[in-house]
C-alpha cells in the first residue's frame, strides 16, 4: 500500500484556562450525577479534541447517563458501541475513513477518533477489543475513564476497584471483612507491556485540567494508537460529597494512589511527583466505600501504594527500549 496523506491535523498545546477553546463539544443537558467525574473528563476531552472528532461510546455511565433519552450532549458525531467492543468499532470507523479518503470519496480532515470506555469496557469485558486495536496500529485514541467500578449498573467491582472497596458485589461482612480482597489491574501497564505499535500512553486526573487537555491533544497528534487512563472520581460509587470531586482527584495524586505520567517511545516522564506523599488514609477517609476498613486493611493498602511509589525512580532509569523511526 503506498503511503497516503490522510490530512492529519496537528492540535496546538493549550497554554492557559483562559486560552482553552471556548466551544463546548460536550454540551449541558445530560443525566449524569451532580459532580460526575467522568462527565467532566468527557467535557475536557471533547473541548481539547475540537470539532473534527468522532466519539465511540461503549455502554456504561458515559453512554446511558449521557444519552437518556433519545438525545445526547455530543456536538460532534458519536456512536454507541457495546461494552465489549469499543476498540473494534473504532477500528472499523478508522478503516472506513482511510479507504474513503484513498478512493477520493472523502476529502476532509482525518477525524480524531476517540473511544470513551469505562474501566470495564477497557480492561475487563472490553480488554480484547482494546488490545487488538492497539496491536493493529489504528489511528485512534482509546480513553479509559476510570471510576473504579461498574458504576452504571449500581456500583459493582471491576478490575480497577481498589483493595478494600465496598461494592455491591464485594460488600464487607463477617467472613469477608474488607469487602474487596483483590488488588486492581494497571491499565496503562497492560498497554505499555506488549503493543509495539503504541507510541504514547499517559495518565490524567480530572483535577489537573490543563494537563489533561494537553495530553489529549498530544495523543491525538500521534499517528497511531494511543491510550489515556483518566482518573474519574465518582461521588455515587465512592460515596463522597459531590462537591469534592476535584479534591478526591488531588488527594489521589498526593497520596500516590494515582500516578500522573506519560510514556512516550519507551520513556517515562512523570508529570507530578509529590515531594512527600500523604498517607492513603487522608484519601480514604472521605470515601464511604472505605469506611468499613480496619487499621490492618489500610496498612495493606499503604503497603501496596508504597511499593508502587518505590518503583517510580527505578522505572525512570530502566534501559531504554528501541525507539521507532519517525513517521512509522
Amino acid at each position, binding site marked *: 500500500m503506498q503511503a497516503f496523506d490522510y490530512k492529519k491535523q496537528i492540535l496546538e498545546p493549550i497554554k492557559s484556562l483562559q486560552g482553552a477553546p471556548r466551544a463546548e463539544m460536550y454540551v449541558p443537558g445530560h443525566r449524569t450525577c451532580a459532580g460526575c467525574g467522568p462527565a467532566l473528563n468527557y467535557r475536557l476531552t471533547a473541548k481539547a479534541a475540537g470539532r473534527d472528532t468522532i466519539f465511540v461510546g461503549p455502554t456504561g455511565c458515559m453512554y446511558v447517563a449521557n444519552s437518556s433519552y*433519545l438525545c445526547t450532549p455530543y456536538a460532534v458525531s*458519536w456512536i454507541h458501541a457495546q461494552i465489549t467492543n469499543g476498540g473494534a468499532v473504532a477500528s472499523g470507523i478508522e478503516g472506513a475513513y482511510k479507504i474513503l479518503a484513498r478512493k477520493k470519496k472523502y476529502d476532509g480532515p482525518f477525524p480524531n477518533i476517540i473511544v470513551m470506555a469505562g474501566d470495564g469496557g477497557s480492561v475487563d469485558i472490553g480488554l480484547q477489543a482494546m488490545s487488538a486495536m492497539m496491536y493493529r496500529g489504528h489511528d485512534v485514541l482509546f480513553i479509559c475513564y476510570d471510576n473504579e467500578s461498574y458504576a452504571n449498573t449500581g456500583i459493582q467491582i471491576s478490575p480497577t476497584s481498589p483493595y478494600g472497596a465496598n461494592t455491591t458485589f464485594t460488600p464487607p461482612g463477617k467472613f469477608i471483612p474488607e469487602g474487596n480482597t483483590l488488588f486492581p489491574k494497571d491499565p496503562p501497564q497492560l498497554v505499555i507491556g506488549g503493543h509495539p505499535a503504541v507510541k504514547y500512553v499517559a495518565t490524567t486526573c480530572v483535577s489537573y485540567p490543563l494537563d489533561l487537555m494537553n495530553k489529549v491533544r498530544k495523543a491525538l497528534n500521534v499517528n497511531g494508537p494511543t491510550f489515556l487512563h483518566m482518573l474519574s472520581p465518582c461521588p455515587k460509587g465512592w460515596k463522597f460529597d459531590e462537591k469534592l470531586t476535584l479534591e478526591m482527584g488531588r488527594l489521589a495524586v498526593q497520596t500516590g494512589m494515582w500516578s500522573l505520567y506519560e510514556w512516550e517511545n519507551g520513556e517515562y516522564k512523570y508529570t507530578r511527583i509529590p515531594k512527600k506523599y500523604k498517607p492513603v488514609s487522608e484519601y480514604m477517609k472521605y470515601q464511604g466505600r472505605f469506611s468499613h476498613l480496619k487499621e490492618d486493611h489500610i496498612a495493606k493498602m499503604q503497603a501496596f501504594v508504597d511499593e508502587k511509589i518505590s518503583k517510580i525512580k527505578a522505572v525512570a532509569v530502566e534501559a531504554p527500549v528501541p525507539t521507532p523511526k519517525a513517521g512509522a
Partner: protein
Amino acid sequence: MSINVPKDREVPFGAVTPAPVNQQELFITSNWRIIRPIIDHEKCTRCFTCYISCPDSCWSFNEKEEQMEWNWKFCKGCGICINECPADALSAAPELDFPDGVVRLEKPF
C-alpha cells in the same frame, strides 16, 4: 398488511438523532438542584477555575459584560465550583430563596 406507528410515537430511523449545537434542550436539569452558586463579581479574579471545573459547563465568560455567567437551565447544584474557587467569590444559596428557584418541568423528561 401494514404496521402503523402513531406520529407522536415515531422514533428516528436506526435510532440516529441529530447532534445538539450548544445545549441539549431535551434534558433540562435545573430542577435537580437544592442549592445554587452565587458569584461575587468583585472578588472574582476571572481565573476560569469554575468554568473548567463544571461537568455541566454551567459557567461561561460573557465577553461583553466581562464577567462569569451562570447557566440557570442546567446547573445541578453539585457545588464543585464553590469548593474550587480560589478567590472565595462563590457561595451556596438555597434554591428555594429565589423566585425562579425549584423549577418544575411540565413532564418528567
